[in-house]
């Protein structure tokens, strides 16, 4: 007689018609375009790899210092350093096509035209399972203003919708009084899913030097500190829309991930936690699996939205 056999919980999820091995994805800007993740881990164990935001033109980003530690969190003002869509398609897409994981390509622009053009270029490209629209970057000039205006979001998503068949995920900002309204605007314009949250606007100061700690003065706050804000955002969004929601913010272990799923997220993205370890998303998927086994939940989709409120 061997040890009691228990079937491992089923971690598969389907979002916008696409199946993912696990609901634990990387978050944009925290796993590059996959090169390092591939070098140091087994990418086939990831739910999906979400690439760093790519823009039409290459961007240099902001000078050093670009990050700083805060209480249970960090600030960043990377400033969207990226090689631009042409180099992305030429140099990065081939790897994403080869990699044994789902790829979500995240795009960022200054205007609706930019988003439309980016989506056009990527439409029909192999290896792009979903397109994530970063409408929420605190480190670009009008990132927050546009991204907190429901009608701008509606227009932008509608514009992109006409030029691509790839399912669209719209990534929202928490720097707003009504994130649910933003989600509704995106849904009505044809988004297939919502992801939330991007970073909160924050700042840190050198008290001895009397200077900001970031070259760009303010930056985006991420990490465990913002988990409560992210959970509340997901809670509000899932009550306002029908499309799936992908939770992001401060997820550092499998129980954190479970909390987002319980509130109603269909999948989650792990950002800052990757900086502690390239294996973080894979470890988190395993912890989630252990949690499901303890809870005697057979499939992760049975956990989604189970909040008793």
């Amino acid at each position: 007689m061997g040890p009691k056999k228990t079937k491992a919980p089923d971690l598969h999820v389907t979002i916008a018609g696409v199946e993912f091995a696990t609901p634990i994805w990387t978050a944009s800007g925290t796993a590059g375009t996959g090169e390092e993740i591939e070098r140091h881990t087994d990418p086939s164990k990831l739910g999906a790899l979400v690439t760093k935001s790519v823009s039409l033109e290459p961007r240099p980003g902001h000078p050093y210092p670009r990050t700083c530690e805060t209480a249970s969190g960090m600030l960043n003002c990377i400033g969207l350093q990226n090689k631009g869509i042409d180099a992305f398609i030429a140099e990065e897409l081939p790897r994403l096509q080869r990699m044994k994981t789902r790829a979500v390509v995240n795009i960022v622009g200054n205007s609706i035209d930019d988003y439309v053009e980016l989506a056009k270029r990527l439409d029909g490209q192999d290896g792009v399972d979903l397109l994530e629209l970063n409408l929420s970057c605190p480190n670009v000039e009008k990132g927050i203003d546009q991204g907190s205006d429901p009608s701008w979001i509606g227009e932008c998503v509608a514009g992109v919708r006409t030029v691509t068949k790839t399912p669209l995920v719209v990534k929202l900002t928490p720097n707003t009084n009504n994130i649910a309204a933003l989600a509704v605007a995106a849904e009505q314009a044809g988004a297939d899913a919502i992801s939330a949250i991007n970073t909160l606007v924050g700042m840190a100061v050198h008290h001895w030097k009397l200077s900001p700690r970031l070259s760009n003065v303010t930056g985006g706050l991420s990490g465990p500190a913002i988990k409560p804000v992210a959970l509340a955002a997901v809670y509000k969004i899932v009550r306002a829309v029908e499309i799936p929601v992908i939770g992001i913010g401060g997820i550092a272990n499998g129980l954190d991930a479970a909390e987002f799923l319980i509130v109603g997220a269909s999948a989650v993205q792990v950002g800052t936690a990757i900086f502690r370890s390239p294996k973080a998303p894979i470890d988190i998927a395993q912890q989630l699996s252990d949690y499901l086994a303890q809870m005697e939940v057979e499939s992760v989709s049975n956990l989604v939205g189970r909040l008793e409120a």
Partner: protein
Amino acid sequence: MNITHTSRLVSTKAVGPAIYQQRFHQPTVARSAHAGQFVHVLPDGHNLFRRALSVYATDPDKGTFDVLHQVLGEGTRSLSRLEKGAEVDTLGPLGNRFPAPPKGRRAILVGGGLGMAPLRLWAYELAGAMVKRARGNEIDRKRLPLIMLGARTKDLTTKPYKLGKFGIRVQWATDDGSRGYHGTIVMRLREDVEKELLDPERSVVYGCGPEPMMAALAEECESFSIPCYVSLERSMPCGFGVCMGCVVRRRDGSAYETFSRVCRDGPVFNAADIIF
């Protein structure tokens, strides 16, 4: 390649004021790490980020590597207080290596403060290779690497670990003149060149230390046309290239490549390629 390891603390030795040499058992790192590379250490559960520490010494046979660090903040403090046998989560070895000296040039290793750490391993590797090449014959001591170290004052000078067996010389400079040359180590370098104690055409400089010192060193080397490689320090959230936090400005940068990542494209750069 798996870079995630558990390292076990073998010993902690106080080698200066709040300066510790710590030895960890981790055979993969011990065997694969080279001078210039670093390990990224998670001090304990409460720090969000890891702390980067250069590899100071390795013993591939015993499977250990050493780091040398100064207690600055919470991270290095909790590291210094670890008990023998404690297990520490480390990533590494990370980053590139010091490039070999161009033919016919002697390695001049210029360090400030804890910048000595990677230079010491570099000297050890260079001298070890010379001994190996000599196959039992006497080595040409004038081609041994020369180590030039600067510090504020004598109390802060720490002798590099186990270089005596090769007969590698260490020259000092202190701001207050309490040990060696009175002034900065970069000033000493300049004087040595001017006094023709050091031949710019037959030297290559490797530097590691505070950024202003590296900038001065690079400028001095440029004026003498000495090739100069510097190892840079940055706050490093990830250490393996994904966060884009640890950047340095490049001289030849395209729009996108204005900035290079110190953790991945460095920490060692040709000083001619970067802007301080």
